[in-house]
């Protein structure tokens, strides 16, 4: 199975001796993807929009999650909120680079995720750090009733430099999207404090209209100046292989999550 060519010891494979940067080589690395956890729903709870509001917003939402447990298997990503904004402010003032800011911000989401896991512990939810998501998520879902994870992806010092400015482009929305994408999840639902996506920021402009359904590509073209989700998610969606749609719902309105899990048209659906 091994062969000596050009001074290097190779292992026989369809990619042997090939440049993985060669466009022709890249183009032939396609195949049908097998979903790993096709019955799992990924629920992303916003940090700023839900967690920072405290008990009045979070408790009814967690009750709704528990009520849906018998019908739907859920893993819950949690975002960071105002503490990340504060640590960005201090970090930027000190001149720290994007990768350092990403490492700091991830701790805020970890705190929020840990609090959510404590509140759901008696219902059998476990908290998983990134290495455990890689190694143990399927086992945990077989043994436990659900899992809570840090929504921010583990990019840390390796966070991508953004096109503009210094803020880390991949927060908890991007991380939850990537979890749904890699596991081939049944659905991905973003829980925010607005009814969905609007033509403008509804908090600033009362004339803004709700968009019930749109594609990621259209949305990128519209260049709306503020979005309820991270703009990096839209770019990721244009390359989606499995997570072909995401739904944004208002978690302050009881029943929205249940309807979204049941596949009803609530909030905004963004298609890949």
């Amino acid at each position, binding site marked *: 199975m091994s062969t000596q060519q050009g001074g290097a010891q190779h292992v026989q494979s369809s990619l042997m001796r090939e440049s993985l940067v*060669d466009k022709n080589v890249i183009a032939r690395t*396609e195949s049908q993807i097998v979903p790993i956890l096709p019955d799992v729903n990924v629920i992303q709870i916003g940090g700023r929009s839900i967690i920072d509001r405290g008990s009045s917003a979070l408790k009814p939402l967690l009750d709704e999650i528990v009520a849906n447990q018998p019908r739907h298997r859920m893993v819950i990503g949690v975002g960071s909120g105002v503490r990340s904004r504060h640590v960005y402010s201090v970090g930027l003032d000190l001149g720290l680079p994007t990768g350092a800011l990403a490492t700091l911000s991830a701790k805020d989401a970890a705190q929020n995720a840990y609090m959510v896991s404590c509140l759901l512990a008696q219902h059998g939810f476990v908290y998983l750090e990134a290495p455990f998501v890689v190694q143990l998520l399927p086992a945990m879902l077989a043994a436990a009733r659900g899992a809570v994870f840090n929504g921010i992806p583990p990019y840390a010092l390796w966070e991508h430099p953004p096109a503009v400015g210094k803020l880390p482009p991949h927060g908890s929305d991007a991380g939850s999207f990537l979890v749904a994408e890699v596991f081939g999840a049944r659905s991905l639902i973003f829980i925010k404090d607005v009814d969905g996506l609007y033509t403008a920021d509804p908090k600033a402009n009362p004339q803004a209209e709700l968009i019930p359904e749109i594609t990621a590509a259209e949305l990128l073209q519209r260049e709306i100046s503020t979005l309820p989700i991270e703009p990096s998610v839209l770019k990721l969606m244009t390359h989606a292989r499995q997570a072909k749609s995401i739904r944004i719902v208002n978690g302050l309105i009881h029943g929205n999550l249940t309807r979204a899990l049941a596949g009803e048209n609530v909030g905004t659906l963004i298609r890949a």
Partner: protein
Amino acid sequence: MDDNPILTALGKRLVSGSLSDAAVMQATEATPNYSILPWVNVVKIGGQSIMDRGREAVYPLVEEIVSNLGQHKMILGTGAGTRARHIYSLAIDLGLPVGVLTVLGTAVAWQNAQMLHYLLAQHGIPFIEPEGFNTMPHYLMERSAVICQGMPPYKLWEQNPDKGRIPPQRTDTGCFLIAEVFAARKMIFVKDEDGLYTADPKKDPKCEYIPRISVEELLALDLNDLIVERAVLEFLARARNVKEIQFVNGLKRGQLTAALNGEPVGTIIYRNGGAQ
């Protein structure tokens, strides 16, 4: 919140505004860039190009690294290579997604880093995992070098490429991002070619050598094949700290030393506005 005297003007916008607001993102440009490890050199040792060749290529390079320990501080990152090509090929055939391929490929870069670590262990050079990076400054001050696997720690969170299933951000990108975040003195890629050509010199004998080029020009050429992952070029173009990256032939004795000493060996890709 607006009358909070502790927050800076930017801090007030960050705390009260939307992080997806283009104006807020733009405002973060006007903050200082602090260099965390300005004296460190990041050296990436190729997987297929160096490690897979075994003793013949690796021993002389290890000797050259050791001879530079007194003069230069180095973060040594490793590539993956032929075993990664095998497992990518197998995993694609099994229908596994990009994130899983990254987990698998990381293990191969890790094996190469371990092997390099065994060869440098008697010089007190440690191997560090991404989680241990905060102890790195100490080792660099005491022993002048550390070894890490080159893959960024994205694991299942790796993003899909435009086409195909090969993870787009691999060991070249991981090492580049280490150099960028620490504002390293140099980013040197040690491969088995003298530098960049207009095509793969192993396959096309008529291709031309490029000793120095800007990343913007190189991206505009839209070459079918490159000496480096495309993500590195994309990130170099928008980098804040790294101004240029250098490619040297690790099979030629003295090239790494020359690059560490600031000589223009091999190929240099620079960003406009970068160091001449």
